[in-house]
């Protein structure tokens, strides 16, 4: 039993080993790009858009609504980043039911990379909206004594983001592997169906937490401590 798709080497080119994480990440990227290209190929304003078109519209609207609710700002600038996170993680997790597919999110390297991109995106969006000085001042509020705690919270919430997604998805695959070895008839299928639900919820949670962190990095606390939406959620 392999704990991580990192340990599975699919093929080797010279000294470069292509492991399962890398290959399946590329596969998901190709599928998503191809799907997006197919759906938007004949894009025109018709009275009755095609079904795939409508479904993608629903997804985009859903993500936009969630971002607007959490940030209370114009959601457009955050849509590409957060939407991509959600779609990529959801696609990785849902494709688990395809036999032979090892979800890249079951590897700590993938989830750590995603969490690090959130870590970078928060100051990037914050600086873009508030300017360098405005963003850095938020670290000194309400008092400069809070600075170490804020830095620790940045680090720990990144770690939590990575380990949460990794742990959930990896535990799903491990439990299925254990069940296949002891009760191979029906239970693995049930657990895998349950894993689909967990996978989508984890993708949602990852995206929502990314928005919450971005929202807390981009909002100005004018004057007193107005307790806005999602602020104070730090881990």
């Amino acid at each position: 039993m392999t704990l991580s798709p990192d340990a599975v080497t699919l093929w080797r080119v010279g000294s470069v080993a292509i492991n399962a994480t890398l290959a399946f990440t590329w596969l998901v990227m190709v599928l998503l790009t191809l799907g997006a290209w197919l759906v938007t190929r004949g894009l025109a304003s018709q009275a009755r858009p095609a079904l795939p078109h409508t479904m993608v519209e629903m997804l985009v609207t859903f993500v936009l609504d969630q971002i607007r609710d959490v940030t209370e700002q114009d959601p457009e600038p955050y849509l590409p980043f957060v939407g991509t996170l959600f779609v990529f993680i959801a696609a990785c997790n849902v494709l688990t039911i395809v036999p032979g597919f090892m979800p890249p999110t079951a590897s700590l390297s993938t989830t750590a990379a995603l969490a690090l991109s959130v870590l970078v995106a928060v100051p990037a969006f914050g600086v873009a909206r508030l300017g360098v000085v405005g963003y850095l001042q938020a670290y000194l509020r309400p008092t400069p004594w809070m600075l170490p705690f804020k830095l620790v919270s940045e680090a720990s919430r990144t770690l939590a983001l990575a380990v949460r997604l990794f742990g959930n998805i990896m535990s799903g695959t491990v439990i299925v592997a254990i069940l296949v070895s002891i009760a191979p008839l029906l239970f693995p299928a049930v657990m895998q169906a349950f894993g689909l639900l967990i996978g989508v919820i984890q993708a949602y949670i990852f995206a929502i937490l990314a928005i919450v962190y971005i929202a807390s990095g981009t909002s100005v606390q004018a004057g007193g401590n107005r307790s806005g939406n999602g602020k104070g959620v730090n881990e």
Partner: protein
Amino acid sequence: MMEATWIAVASIVVAGVTMAVGSLAPALGQARALSQALQSIAQQPDEANTLTRTLFVGLAMVESTAIYCFVIALILIFANPFWGGAVGG
């Protein structure tokens, strides 16, 4: 060989205890959060969207402690860092 036996015993027992405690406490916390959220949704169905989203985020936070315990239990059983030293020499 004695050393390796003790490491194995300690790892397995501690992994079990880790999972037991590490799932008990977050389960209690999550149950409390869930019951409060259900109560709030029953009282204010209009706010169900906000409540559900906050509930999910909160549950994820609480759950991460359980996940830490799970990862540590798995490391103890499948990737014990002390095992190689004791067996390999």
